[in-house]
């Protein structure tokens, strides 16, 4: 069905759109393109060009299997968009999706980058300016230093004020590097030196800031959608506490731990915060739920893997909305039109071997069967015969179930995962089943320190 027949005003949108990503998200973007009557053109590496999900699709091979030569190769991707006559480009998640330089390169060559403006992306990519902007908009922060620390002495002063234990973090950090914990005043000097040395080695930037270390909170995030005309809406929150090595395993909405008052207050503040920085498109603000208070951690300026949880609860298609907004259309719905119903759970199924400490397991999938049924959604690029390449991340599929209650959604998930067939490579399905059946998960007694049921 085209946009016209859906009753939206006939504002011109794109005719051809470059999908600058691979796997599950590439399929997801193409589905939105199909709905809007846009022809997707896939940028693909040599490792993916023969994959089943590209069958019958237009593709441009952009480089060799390794991502620096293909999915991270900005010039090749923009040139591919140009020569295949695409006027827009969707970066998906990961790879170049949060790279303001890439967004600017697209714009310079007349290709609309589907994402926030480069300046909003740049602002949120820096830790302390992002926090300053969010505090000004009324979001609660994790107590800590006002920006960059000058010296160990200053670190000690701030630590005395906010209380121990504290966490020293690198301004340019990521992936858990350049972080050190100090549990008392005598540990600050050595933690400071260690964190700084690691930050210089890893990121070439030794600037540090400080936060109180919150142990055992819950990871909650808020989905935002905004257009160019200052309209900002939220699509509720998601609880992503169940993680392994900082990788999310299971997400759900609503968060079973959040009080209605705190939800109301933070959702409104998040909308105000996004509006205050002139945000456009889909974005996510991540929070730590600390004894009932949501404290802002960071903002992801892109579509997220778990966006489908919010789609299931709201009945809105976030990728379609992203493309429309990028084409200059206003949001097709207002906050009052967003009705969040029931409970949704998503499990990320990875090609990893739970029996061998979750070692990634590339290989050929001999037989694949996606689960079906009431309230079950499966997002995947995998089918029988698909070969999981060793070069990229191990996400095979996302299963999302919806139910009137949390228990109903969880029971449907257990049934769906039981129906899923993946022969040839091991998957994380057994781990998900263990979590979903555990009393700790069912009674909501867990936090970021441990996986429930493990």
């Amino acid at each position, binding site marked *: 069905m085209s946009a016209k027949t859906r009753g939206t005003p006939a504002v011109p949108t794109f005719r051809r759109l470059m999908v600058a990503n691979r796997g599950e998200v590439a399929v997801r973007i193409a589905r939105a393109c199909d709905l809007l009557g846009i022809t997707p053109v896939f940028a693909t590496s040599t490792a993916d060009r023969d994959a089943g999900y590209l069958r019958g699709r237009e593709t441009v*091979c952009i480089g060799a299997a390794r991502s620096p030569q*293909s999915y991270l190769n900005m010039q*090749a991707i923009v040139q591919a968009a140009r*020569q295949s006559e695409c006027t827009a480009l969707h970066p998906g998640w990961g790879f170049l999706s949060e790279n303001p330089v890439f967004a600017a390169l697209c714009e310079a060559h007349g290709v609309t980058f589907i994402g926030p403006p480069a300046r909003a992306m740049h602002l949120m990519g820096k830790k302390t300016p992002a926090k300053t902007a969010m505090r000004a908009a009324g979001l609660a922060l994790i107590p800590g230093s006002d920006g960059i620390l000058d010296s160990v002495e200053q670190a000690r002063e701030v630590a005395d004020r906010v209380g121990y234990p504290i966490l020293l973090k690198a301004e340019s950090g990521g992936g858990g590097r350049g972080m050190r914990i100090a549990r008392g005043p005598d540990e600050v000097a050595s933690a400071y030196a260690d964190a700084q040395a690691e930050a210089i080695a890893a990121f070439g930037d030794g600037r540090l800031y400080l936060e109180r270390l919150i142990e055992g909170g819950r990871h909650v995030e808020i989905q935002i959608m905004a257009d160019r005309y200052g309209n900002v809406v939220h699509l509720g929150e998601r609880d992503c506490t169940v993680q392994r090595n900082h990788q999310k395993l299971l997400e759900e909405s609503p968060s079973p731990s959040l009080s209605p008052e705190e939800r109301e207050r933070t959702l409104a503040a998040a909308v105000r915060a996004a509006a205050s920085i002139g945000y456009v498109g889909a974005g996510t603000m991540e929070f730590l739920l600390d004894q009932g208070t949501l404290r802002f951690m960071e903002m992801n300026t892109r579509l997220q893997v778990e966006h489908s949880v919010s789609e299931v609860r709201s009945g809105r298609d976030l990728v379609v909305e992203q493309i429309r907004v990028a084409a200059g259309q206003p949001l097709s719905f207002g906050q009052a039109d967003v009705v969040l119903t029931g409970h949704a759970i998503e499990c990320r199924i990875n090609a990893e071997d739970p029996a061998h400490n979750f070692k*990634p397991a*590339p290989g050929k999938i001999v037989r694949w069967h996606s689960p079906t049924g009431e309230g079950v959604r499966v997002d995947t690029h995998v089918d029988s015969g698909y070969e999981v390449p*060793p070069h990229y*991340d191990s996400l095979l599929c996302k299963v999302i179930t919806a139910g009137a209650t949390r228990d109903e959604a969880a029971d449907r998930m257990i049934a769906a995962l039981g129906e899923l067939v993946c022969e040839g490579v091991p998957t994380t399905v057994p781990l998900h089943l263990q979590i979903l059946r555990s009393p700790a998960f069912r009674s909501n007694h867990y936090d970021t320190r441990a996986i429930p049921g493990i």
Partner: protein
Amino acid sequence: MPVKNFVLDARLTPPVLRARLAAGPDGRQRLLAPGVGMFRGAPDPGMLVGPDQPIGALEILGVVHHVLAPVGAGGLVVAPEDAPRSSAPARRAVGFDDLLLVLDPSATRSESAANQSGPAAGPGVSGGAVLRAPTSGRFYVRSGPGKPAFVSVGAVLEPGQTVGLIEVMKTFSRVLYGGDALPSRARVVRICQADESDVAQGDPLLEVEPVDAADDQNTKPHPA
């Protein structure tokens, strides 16, 4: 005032790319696009092309790159079966690895090196024992750029010793020496894979030979 306005004219010193070489049917060579872009200026059928000779220009985001034939390429340009007609556009869009040109090396018999492509990565057939890749992935012989290699030819290995790293989906794991078919103490004869090469499960990594207790004395890397 310092002279800061000096601009290198890209038209005078265009960047250079080398086409990729692949073996085609009946001994012909296929020169493939080294990147995405608009390609033009390929030599006409019947012309002679050798290594490092220009075979056209690839325009990437408005920047013209000269495309040269790679080392090992050489022969007469032949029209491929799906040859563009004379009415073909002056320039065409190509993707990475798309066909640019077909060469017939037999027509020249110069330093035809059609079989030069691809390193000798065949399995170890010299009779020694072979340590094979435990999983598919990218093989690293050192722990990081500028770091020493884990093992070198002539080194003596013991079970449990790290011989390299394999990266699978961004996760690194160590490749340890050991296995039923391998001698408990062995000397490295050959390292079969270059650093950062992609290996499949079961590909040979090292060729080793057993070390006797007797001649072990002078080869021990770290005398006790």
